[in-house]
């Protein structure tokens, strides 16, 4: 098909010669807050009940949310480290996932519009989410956890590159 050296056979999700930019580690903080807010109240409620009734066995079910919290804490860290993007000459690469991995190539000329979103939690952690849209609904190219100024820079850069290379459908 082509030069076999261009892509390393071992790692389809790490093409040779691509410098990945990681997303901000603050994304892990934001996601861990969500995780803690959903699991910790159960643990606390069970602990209070166990103390009031002086029945320590009631603490046993609390192990489940605790385990989820611990496991989620680690997974989130790995997931956030796995998110990455790379601006190449003609297209943008977005990579994500640890267990279920995916990589998307979006040519600049195919970009229809770019969204930058930041919810209250995102703003508190100083991150924003950037999403690219092509004419295809299947294109799932989003980069969460960008520092706001980087998101703005990327948005403008993508828009200008898209403008320069824009073709019809």
């Amino acid at each position, binding site marked *: 098909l082509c030069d076999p050296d261009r892509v390393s*056979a*071992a*790692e389809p999700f790490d093409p040779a010669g691509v410098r990945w930019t990681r997303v901000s580690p603050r994304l892990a903080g934001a996601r861990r807050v969500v995780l803690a807010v959903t699991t910790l109240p159960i643990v606390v409620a069970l602990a209070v009940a166990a103390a009031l009734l002086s029945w320590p066995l009631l603490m046993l079910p609390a192990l489940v949310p605790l385990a989820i919290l611990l496991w989620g804490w680690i997974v989130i860290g790995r997931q956030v480290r796995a998110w990455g993007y790379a601006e190449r000459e003609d297209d943008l690469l977005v990579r994500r996932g640890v*267990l279920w991995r995916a990589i*998307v*190539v979006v040519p600049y000329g195919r970009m229809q519009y770019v969204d930058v979103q930041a919810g209250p939690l995102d703003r508190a952690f100083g991150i924003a989410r950037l999403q690219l849209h092509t004419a295809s609904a299947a*294109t799932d190219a989003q980069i969460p956890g960008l520092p706001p100024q980087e998101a703005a820079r990327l948005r403008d850069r993508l828009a200008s590159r898209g403008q320069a290379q824009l*073709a*019809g*459908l």
Partner: protein
Amino acid sequence: VTDGAPADPADPDPQGEAEWHHMHPLTPVVRSWRVLVVMLVFIAQGWGQEAMQGGGSAIPDVGRNLDVGLLGGGAVVFLLLVAIGAGYSVLSWRMTRYRITQDALELHTGVLFRQQRRARLDRLQAVDVVQPFVARIAGLSQLTLEVAGGAGSSVALSYLSEERAVSLRGHLLARAAGVSYDTEEAPQAPERPVLEVPFPRLAGSLALSGPAISATLLLLGLLVSVAALRSAAPLAALVPTSIGVASVLWTRFNGSFHFRVAASPDGLRLRHGLLEQRAQTVPPGRVQAVRLAQPLLWRRLDWWSVRVNVAGYGGTSENQESTESVLLPVGTRDEAVGLLALVLPDLGVSPPEHPRAVVDAGLQGFGERAGFVTSPASARWLDPWAWRRTGFRVTDQALLLRRGRFRRHLDVVPHARTQSCALAQGPLQRRLGLVTFALHSTPGPVRPVLPHLAGDVGARLLDEQADRARRARSAAGPERWMEHLAAGGPGPDLQESADLEEPFDAGGPAQDVSRP
């Protein structure tokens, strides 16, 4: 025009062209036909009641007067509502107007909430002339102009007289193609019939379709249980299923009835429909992806269906039946391949190889024949049936993806129409060194995905496909397809290539010289 201002030659919108038009005066009647039917039933009922009351002398006079008084009050309110409704319809008709400028179609609608929509003609994706049943009785048509703006982006002119709709279609297509003409009326592009789906084949294809077969099996099962239980109770299950199956089959039958395909320089013309008739025009280069599919039961007869992604039609899911995206509901292999050659005249297969051989390998082939790359042997753990069939072939112009052991698919996506690509890998695939490749096209029935490719093959395909797509786009023809022709370049001359017996004739050996 009379105020003496000199006509500006640079004005893209001279007065003579940008005249506002109204819809056909019968539009309010056709639009509110349901209301009218309800009204007629209501009135007929009233008369019937009155007649019965007149006949029944046993009713006391007082009661009768009260009844009539109530009826009279009801009638006044009713008439008032009708008058308001009619007034609103007429006002709405008055407010709806359209015009065609040099490069756009403008439509103004709305009484209280006004909408002004302007669609650029060089962005036109397809033009349909639709005749719903009631409009057909009144001799009216709806003209729909599809642009690629997602759901609800089309501009619908409803309703116009049939002649007006057809002449307007010619006008819009000529403008969109970049053809200039001096005459008042736009020249109608000549058409050449390509194929027609005969009725027995359509009926047969429906009888051999999934819903019909499963309904038959269900019926057999129910009959067996009726015989075993000696009770008719299981037959109650038949009612909801038969309604569901009948509605699915009816939708397909109604949409695909008398399906005809014709080729013209404006693109493909599709005509079909029993109650609601549709005449679609898909200009050259607007087809984003093509899928040839064959359910298991069609294999003996070698029937195929052809579906396409066209940007304006999109938005339907894979399972949902969308009549607009069907290029051929059922046809022989030659017809299906011929249509593929019509929408994608250049498959990018160079002379020593015949394009037809490549397509045939894609339709029914296994293994590495005709340059197809298949899943590696390790994929048999995840896909024991079809792993040797799952494969792709890259040509200079398009990517061919074939799939399916039982239900066969061949997806063809021109490089120039690729939106984006992706690779994905789950934990099992990772252990086996496999990846899933997906190509993103505009919304529609064709969603090209290729599971379980070897990791390095998938990575290379992803890398190169992005590159090929970029190069193909920069070499792609203009949006205004006839401008190319006028400039002396090789244009998309569908008339010449509309030959089903020998598709892709550029690359193949000359077989039949007797054809005109």
